[in-house]
């Protein structure tokens, strides 16, 4: 998933980027107000913009974004509350409630807050740096490697998913069955080859790891001194974490209060 052009964020220490991911995750879990979550998301996109990877980030978020927004809309429809919009359908009315929309908005913002920093980090970090950073977080090499390889092969799986889907559609396959189980059944012809291909690939990857000497390699993490960009992102992460924890201690959303004062 790593970009060819990693921009200034490519120079930022992988450990700092992981801390940033954790800080935004923490804040995303603590804050519930749409305003605060929006500001948090803006700060994340701001980091991406300063790192000159905003375009690439938004491009990759697009397909994921459709899913997130759909989930948000489902919230808006299924959560009962004050009716906001009523769409008459055959047999029943589709009601979008105010409370549902509010909850949907929060869940959409949160999912973007969780996904974006992770995406930006993976896009701008070399796999070996990411492995090192995960190992500093006391993760054993095998697990760090597993996580990074899984991320590494995501674009490959997406392309393969598309190809297998095409192959089955060319045999008149269409996921038209209704209901949850019907849809699951419809996906079997795609997921079975995808899984079996992944197992075949894992076999080669295992041999390659062995050849490259991973099994005996004692990774001694080696990091360059922190650059200005690293310190800046560290400061941003610290501010986010401190405000989030202070809000918990204060018992209310300090950001929203501050905006309210202004």
């Amino acid at each position, binding site marked *: 998933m790593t970009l060819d052009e990693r921009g200034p964020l490519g120079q930022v220490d992988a450990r700092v980027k992981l801390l940033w991911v954790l800080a935004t995750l923490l804040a995303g879990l603590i804050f519930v107000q749409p305003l605060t979550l929006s500001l948090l998301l803006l700060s994340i996109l701001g980091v991406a913009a300063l790192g000159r990877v905003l375009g690439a980030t938004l491009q990759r978020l697009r397909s994921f974004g459709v899913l997130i927004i759909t989930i948000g809309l489902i919230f808006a429809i299924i959560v009962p509350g004050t009716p906001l919009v009523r769409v008459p359908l055959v047999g029943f009315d589709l009601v979008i409630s105010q409370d549902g929309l509010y909850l949907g908005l929060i869940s959409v913002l949160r999912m973007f807050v969780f996904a974006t920093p992770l995406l930006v980090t993976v896009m701008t970090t070399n796999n070996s740096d990411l492995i090192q950073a995960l190992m500093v977080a006391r993760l054993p090499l095998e697990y760090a490697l597993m996580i990074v390889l899984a991320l590494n092969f995501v674009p490959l799986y997406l392309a393969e998913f598309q190809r297998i889907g095409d192959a089955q559609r*060319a045999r008149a396959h269409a996921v038209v069955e209704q209901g949850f189980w019907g849809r699951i059944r419809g996906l*079997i012809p795609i997921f079975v080859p995808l899984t079996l291909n992944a197992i075949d690939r894992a076999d080669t990857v295992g041999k390659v790891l062995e050849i490259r000497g991973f099994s005996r390699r004692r990774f001694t993490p080696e990091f360059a001194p922190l650059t200005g960009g690293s310190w800046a992102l560290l400061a941003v992460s610290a501010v986010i974490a401190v405000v989030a924890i202070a809000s918990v201690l204060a018992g209310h959303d300090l950001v929203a209060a501050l905006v309210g004062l202004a």
Partner: protein
Amino acid sequence: MSGEPALLRVERVSFRYRPDGWALRDVDLHFAAGEFTAIIGNNGSGKSTLMKLLVGLLKPTVGRVIVDGVDTRTARVSQLARRVGFIFQNPNDQLFANTVAEEIRFGLRNLGLPPAEVEARLEATLAQFELTAVRDLFPRFLSRGDKQKVCIASVVAMQPRVLLLDEPTTGQDHRDSRAIMELATALNQQGITILLVTHDLNNVAAYTRRVVVLRDGVVVADGPTAAVMSDVALLEACSLVPPQIVRLSLGLADLGLPLALSVEAMEQQTRAWLRARVRP
């Protein structure tokens, strides 16, 4: 050719995946019923894109594709599948069922055929492809050549008028590659139109009757196999190399040897030429 319109018509088609570049530009091609045609070109020449347009997996950005009278822009892939069968390069991208028989039933059921018809076609297909002995085996455990055969069988069972083969012999050894090309020839003799996308020019020369050459999304040659294969300059400009036997045959043309597209043809022609030389 009769006055009947071509089975597949690609009419002034251009296609782009992204706004910044055309994968195909102004392609105008007709394929008549009963053809055995190769589409060749290097990676990025647009041949896979052309194949996907012919089965409706992609819709033309400009122009239209007519498959057996149906405009692909207005039809779903699953509807076109009963007219055009598409075999993908890697059988592992397609095989998912737990038995060979189930794999063949899959497409038939997708067509909505009644169970009796599904079973009848299954039996006929197993017999036609000599797969009866392996009908209850897990397709993924078959040899690569047999896997490809199961894929072709599962599509031919749907009785398409056209079969598109995308690199069917890539990564296959000689034995399997030959078996697949002979299978394609047999299907062609039964009336199925065959379009073959491949890097293997030995097979193109030996088995097909017409060749379309693509380069950078443009058709740069289209004609009888012998004519295209003997245009060495054109092929080299497309980073393609004619088969060794064709190059030898071209090199000896001044001796009066006719062009040979396969080793067998070269042998026959040489023998005939030697006989003619003995009695002046």
